[in-house]
């Protein structure tokens, strides 16, 4: 109880980034949703369902970026394989959505998804059981990626795999999963993945209201994840994480079992990623092994870096901005958008080492910095 109170206190006490973030997020969400549902389609202010879906996707990406920032920005664990957890979450949700199709598939088979019918599967593989229940699927959304993160993290962090070794191993992980999910024998639809979803929890996926609903839920959960991550990073736990980032050995000599912390954080981050994936699948309408591709995971890292690692809002902003840029560029300049995107990445790294958030901070600082700094700095020992 007292901890809750404490958390609330944290939340209120000068937490203006949190407040600002939450306010902006919710205003935007509410405005967008209302204007989609209430305004007539020809109104200038009408937000199209296309835009809502797009925004929903961006928010999922933002959540994913947040997941990466939590481990990379605060604990120095650079995961080049976070797409794996995202995709697993997406697949768990996708399996549920597939089961919801029921006998409306092209073959009209009430039990087997279409791809199983035409590849002659006799019956549903065991790991598909229970996936027709939303609660069970949601459990799996957390459980499967969570367990994977736990096992992988436990192995890696206990054996003190660090730095680029860890990064490359996470890449190997997602790459291996990609190859595995490509295999049709796995029973996840091979290269095509899962698609042609019809409904979620009884709501037609193609209905505007369902899309807006999913969008709002995504925004809510993003807000929640943001606040909880922010609280974690402000607690002593957050400082321990930073200390592990700076000098893991030293933290160990202070009595912290750094591997526990890292495993815990890794699982937490994987869960966020999985949640993002679960929200992503119904909004985008397809989940396939491409999500496991190492390049996707690198892109996540790029979002975080562009936004500014080590600041949660930076990650969110980076994800949304880069995704938006990609959306715009691919239609504005289909033949040369890669030049622009590539140049953007180079520009940001060279000129904005701390990302966009760093730019913001610098501005704030230069506004308030004065000459009296020297007094604080040259104190010397004792006096």
């Amino acid at each position, binding site marked *: 109880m007292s901890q809750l109170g404490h958390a609330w206190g944290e939340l209120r006490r000068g937490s203006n980034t949190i407040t600002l973030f939450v306010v902006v997020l919710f205003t935007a969400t509410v405005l967008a949703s209302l204007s989609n549902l209430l305004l007539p389609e020809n109104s200038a202010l009408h937000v199209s369902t296309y835009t809502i879906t797009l925004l929903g996707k961006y928010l999922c990406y933002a959540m994913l970026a947040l997941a990466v920032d939590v481990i990379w920005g605060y604990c120095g664990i650079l995961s080049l394989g976070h797409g794996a957890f995202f995709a697993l979450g997406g697949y768990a949700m996708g399996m549920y959505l597939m089961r919801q199709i029921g006998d409306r598939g092209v073959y009209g088979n009430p039990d087997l998804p279409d791809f199983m019918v035409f590849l002659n599967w006799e019956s549903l593989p065991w790991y598909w059981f229970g996936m027709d229940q939303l609660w069970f699927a949601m459990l799996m959304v957390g459980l499967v990626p969570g367990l994977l993160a736990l096992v992988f993290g436990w192995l890696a962090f206990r054996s003190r795999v660090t730095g680029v070794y860890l990064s490359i191993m996470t890449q190997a992980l997602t790459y291996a999963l990609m190859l595995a999910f490509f295999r049709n024998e796995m029973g996840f639809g091979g290269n095509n993945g899962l698609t042609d979803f019809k409904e979620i929890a009884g709501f037609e996926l193609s209905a505007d209201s369902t899309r807006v609903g999913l969008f709002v839920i995504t925004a809510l959960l993003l807000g929640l994840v943001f606040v909880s991550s922010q609280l974690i990073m402000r607690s002593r736990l957050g400082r321990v994480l930073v*200390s592990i980032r700076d000098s893991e050995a030293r933290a160990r000599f202070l009595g912290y079992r750094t591997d526990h912390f890292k495993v815990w954080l890794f699982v937490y981050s994987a869960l966020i990623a999985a949640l993002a994936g679960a929200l992503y699948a119904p909004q985008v309408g397809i989940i396939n092994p491409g999500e496991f591709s190492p390049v996707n995971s690198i892109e996540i890292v790029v979002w975080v870096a562009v936004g500014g690692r080590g600041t949660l809002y930076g990650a969110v902003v980076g994800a949304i901005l880069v995704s938006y840029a990609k959306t715009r560029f691919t239609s504005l300049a289909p033949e040369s958008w890669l030049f622009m995107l590539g140049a953007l990445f180079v520009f940001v790294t060279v000129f904005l080492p701390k990302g966009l958030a760093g730019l913001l901070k610098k501005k704030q600082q230069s506004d308030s910095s004065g000459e009296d700094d020297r007094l604080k*700095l040259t*104190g010397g*020992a004792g006096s």
Partner: protein
Amino acid sequence: MSPGRIKAPDVSHKVILYIEALSVSFDGFKALNDLSLYINDGELRCLIGANGAGKTTLMDVITGKTRCDSGQVYFGQTVDLLKHDEAAIARLGIGRKFQKPTVFEALSVSENLELSLKTGKGVWFTLMAKLDSEQRDRIDAVLTTIGLSALRHKPAGVLSHGQKQWLEIGMLLVSDPRLMLIDEPVAGMTAQETEKTAELLTSLAGERTVVVVEHDMEFVRSIARTVTVLHQGSVLAEGTMDQVQNNPAVVEVYLGEES
């Protein structure tokens, strides 16, 4: 709620640290060679010896950083340190200051101290942890002692070399360990600071056990009761400062003529 509490070591035989027949080698090079050493509870022990004699390595073994080839290390009568990892050893109450100051550069000075506090170190504990007023006072006191009060909110990364040395000492103090292993605390300090450190360490002994490695003979002289001299991985001499100082072997390999 104090999950951090750990049973005190069994010091019924007065000895808090047993080191017996310890050997460590790196690629065939013997850094420690059949070394035996006993530290009494509450003692202030100075460890001196030539560069490369194995002093830091000894601390590495005690704190779990380096695995030994053979030998035994006991904390009190019962705790076999070789069976514990770094974190567990730290939680047993063995604190250490490193030869090369290592602090958490991105954290502020006071956060460095906060993390060193003697409290729970588990994930859940730290998630919920909050500084109580007693701890706050303790941090303030230590900040004053190490002279970094004015820099408490600065990231430790911007400290000068000597300031980092002090911060490390501060981190050790605030963690209130049973056994302190201090590697070269006064390197890079002015004479006056050295004196101050000497006072500090002397005042700590008694309640805690302190093992200091230092090359500054003046400093050693000013704090030492028992001095152990290591040479090429084993004990060369042990005794009071005077005894050691007049030991020709020690003079030969370590002190040189002028001291």
